[in-house]
């Protein structure tokens, strides 16, 4: 039998065959479906202004929100530290979900354990689970630190992690010296970014306190030019590499506080190692002596920033995700200010090349109406990038706003940013709304382009708007996270993604005569 006769069709084409279409029709007699007319009417209604009004007046049901829960962020934060095992205290299903979700985005393993609490723990508390869990996980996975976060179950029953860890030491399951950091991460407060912040602060404050070091800001490195850098809940491993490149160009010493890029971009060597890279534990107390701290996600890292500026008494440059030329300029200025070092010529040259690229592409971007979805800091960066290229942000949805930094809320900052540009005049910032709201917006007030995570693909498809995948999670495209979107290089990547999506649209929707060779 020839290859053609074998004719192997999978789900992409098999179910379009007549026999399966027939099956689909036949099955309807048992489904008691709505009539075709009813369905068509409901579809049309769902796209109407009347529906949009109802959609925006709902108070309680949440449909396709763009946020996850706290402990997911904690797991990511824990993986930013050397040989640290994330340890989730609660029902084991949560841990399974965090591992799957993060692995689907990064296409990498996510080592993390659970205390596997069940009904008896719900009644009597999870102390025994936690103590047994520490003993087992340390024996099997040999971490040099365990980082515990809670789930909503443990929070509702009020488990006391500090006391439980203390009891584990008293029982001799772990030594007095063995590092166990922890944080409380109730899933019914905030979102994944809140959980990232809680764990980062938990680890920094724990390692600092137990070291006995008393911080003397600026005294740590011999040269006195050491900097702390925090990227936050960072779905792009490529962004870590880009930051390292920029810091190397400055020739400054630095410590990245929370670097999960090793764990989420490790080599296939024939052996799985469990722990790759990460901030060295002994560097954390020393980080308290640095010149200052640069934060690239000021809304995400609110509590960590407060801790560093308070307890470590350090100056903080708190930015949002540094996207675009202006965003990157601000990043470089901040590094300059914190370190006293000039912006390296290499980066200025790179800036020039990317500006050149923006000029080349601007005719295809200018006036393009854009919808944006993401976490607060990413959105600030994206809005800035759109405005400086002449793209016009129209609909902006942030399910996990309205976090504040220095009493400025995300929404206020986003609106001020938009108000300062003629290209921002049509934008509305929706905080606490979801992607079903976005669907109505896209259908009732059309845009040319949507930028957001894979979850936005459903609304984008209904509205026939091309989607540029940026943010978290990106499940349905490969390797996006390996390419930086921050810094000048990241700006170039983002520009390429966007302009080439627009050019593809031009080809897809050509009128015959304008299927052009040169663009």
């Amino acid at each position, binding site marked *: 039998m020839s290859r053609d006769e074998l004719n192997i069709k999978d789900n992409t084409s098999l179910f379009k065959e007549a026999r399966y279409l027939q099956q689909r029709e036949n099955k309807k007699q048992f489904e008691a479906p709505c009539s075709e007319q009813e369905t068509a009417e*409901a579809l049309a209604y769902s796209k109407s202004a009347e529906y949009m009004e109802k959609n925006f007046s709902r108070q309680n*049901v949440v449909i396709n929100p763009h946020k996850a829960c706290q402990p997911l962020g904690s797991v990511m934060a824990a993986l930013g530290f050397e040989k640290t095992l994330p340890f989730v205290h609660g029902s084991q299903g949560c841990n399974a979900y965090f591992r799957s979700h993060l692995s689907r985005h990064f296409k990498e393993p996510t080592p993390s354990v659970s205390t596997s609490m069940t009904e008896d723990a719900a009644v009597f508390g999870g102390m025994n689970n936690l103590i047994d869990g520490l003993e087992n996980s340390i024996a099997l996975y040999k971490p040099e630190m365990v980082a515990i976060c809670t789930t909503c179950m443990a929070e509702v029953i009020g488990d006391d992690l500090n006391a439980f860890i203390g009891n584990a030491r008293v029982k001799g399951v772990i030594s007095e010296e063995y590092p166990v950091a922890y944080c409380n991460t109730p899933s019914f407060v905030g979102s994944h970014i809140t959980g990232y912040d809680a764990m980062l602060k938990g680890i920094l404050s724990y390692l600092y306190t137990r070291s006995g070091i008393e911080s003397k800001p600026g005294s740590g490195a011999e040269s006195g030019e050491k900097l702390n850098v925090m990227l936050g809940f960072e779905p792009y491993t490529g962004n870590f590499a880009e930051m390292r490149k920029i810091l190397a160009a400055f020739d400054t010493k630095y410590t990245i506080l929370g670097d999960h890029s090793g764990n989420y971009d490790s080599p296939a060597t024939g052996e799985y190692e469990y722990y790759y890279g990460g901030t060295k534990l002994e560097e954390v107390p020393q980080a308290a002596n640095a010149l200052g701290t640069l934060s690239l996600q000021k809304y995400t890292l609110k509590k960590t920033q407060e801790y560093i500026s308070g307890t470590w008494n350090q100056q903080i440059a708190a930015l949002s995700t540094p996207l675009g030329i202006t965003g990157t300029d601000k990043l470089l200025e901040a590094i300059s200010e914190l370190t006293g070092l000039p912006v390296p010529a290499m980066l200025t040259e790179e800036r020039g090349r990317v500006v050149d690229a923006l000029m080349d592409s601007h005719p295809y971007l200018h006036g393009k109406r854009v919808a944006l979805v993401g976490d607060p800091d990413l959105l600030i960066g994206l809005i800035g990038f759109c405005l400086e290229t002449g793209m016009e942000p129209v609909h902006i949805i942030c399910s996990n706003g309205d976090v504040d930094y220095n009493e400025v809320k995300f929404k206020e900052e986003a609106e001020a940013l938009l108000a300062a540009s003629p290209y921002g005049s049509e934008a509305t910032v929706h905080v606490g709304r979801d992607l079903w709201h976005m669907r109505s917006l896209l259908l009732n007030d059309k845009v040319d382009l949507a930028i957001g995570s894979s979850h936005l693909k459903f609304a984008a498809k209904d509205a026939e708007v091309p989607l540029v995948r940026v943010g978290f999670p990106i499940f349905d495209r490969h390797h996006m996270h390996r390419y930086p979107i921050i810094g000048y290089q990241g700006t170039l990547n983002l520009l390429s993604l966007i302009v080439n999506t627009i050019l593809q649209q031009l080809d897809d929707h050509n009128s015959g005569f304008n299927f052009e060779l040169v663009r």
Partner: protein
Amino acid sequence: MGLNIEENQKLVADILEAYPKKARKDREKHFQVANDQAIDCGTCAVKSNIKSRPGVMTPRGCAYAGSKGVVWGPIKDMVHISHGPVGCGQYSWGSRRNFANGTLGIDNFTAMQITSDFQETDIVFGGDKKLAVIMREITEMFPLAKGISVQSECPVGLIGDDIEAVSKKMSKELDMPVVPVRCEGFRGVSQSLGHHIANDAIRDFVMGRAELAETGPYDVNIIGDYNIGGDAWASRILLEEMGLRVIAQWSGDGSLNELEIAHKAKLNLIHCHRSMNYMVDHMEKAYGIPYLEYNFFGPTKTYESLRAIAALFDETIQENCEKMIAKYKPVMDAVISKYRPRLENKTVMLMIGGLRSRHTIGAYEDLGMDIVASGYEFAHKDDYEKMLPMLEEGTIVMDDPTAYELEELTKKMNIDLVGSGVKEKYVYHKMGVPFRQMHSWDYSGPYHGFDGFKVFAKDMDMTVNSPVWKLVGRKGSTQPEEAGV
């Protein structure tokens, strides 16, 4: 290391040495090396469906995952509320590939995340009032929804919300089925209790609620097929070609009405016995409907199953069955003759949820591949008893194996192919071991039926024989042993 009973017993013992005493004692009970006695009578010593050890990186999920993620979620024309905080619904949103015909958000609500998004105030004051409002809003947003289910997350049970009372009241008010499902994640030891709870809710709230206009002698149900990558469709097409009439498909591409009329069938055909055995048992007792567990993975098992099904009907069906097998066999033989030489004697380790660890064995054997270790995430004793007779002597049987155990077994048994889930997948990529996600078919499929086996064979060949594995350097050498293709 091959299939030697003593060697493999020692291998397992060596691996378990790493555990602290208490955990080791527990984990020992979850392993068995198949010997002739166990194989002949299916005697199973493996302890199953008991708690996972804390801290061991179990592959298991929770009751919510079993109910919303597996059983209820795929019912396409109902809205399933993930009731509680945002996470559970978010993580189970569209990740199990339950294909369904219909328009998403209009008359099909499968790949959506509809949640009450509990905030602190809901924990303090309870979420019952909010739940009622949510249900009203759902009927506003989704006027064609046929019903609603409430999938409880952990806090709902802990704070003592009365979702049953709210559901009862709202069912009347909205004039549609509103089903409370007590599938809080902390209940039970895995997804398995969630399946049971979900089945009980189907029994109590929807079963037998509608009539079928005309019944016939060939009416059957497909029970326990979730239509991953279109599996249920690839199965249904064979049953229908044989002359049977499938009146309900549970729950992949399933609808409320199919749940409600299923009691009118003459026979229940159950694929995932683990997740829906409760249902067929109940229907046998309550409605006198017999059931048959079938297996549509790989041609050998598919022929066997088709004949076993036909044997329960008259000669017309039996003749159709033979005609059908005669029609497809040359195609299946051609698939085998193409792929078997490429896969012969390759060793396979499986660790899948509740049924596929045994149901796929025949399909691998059709391709000449050898199962050397097989285990389940959340199976019960009967699953092991059914699996043992399918195995060769010396095969390692394992229950709820931890990440550590799987990795050690892979290293020491020279495994050529691992079939498991996404949590395991990328570990094996680091190790340079060919891997297929056997929970979700790695976004391929279908794998069921004759159309499915073609895809299965092609995928296994692609996986085992991809040149990429040869690019991986081995430990201790800076260069790959065999660079290039």
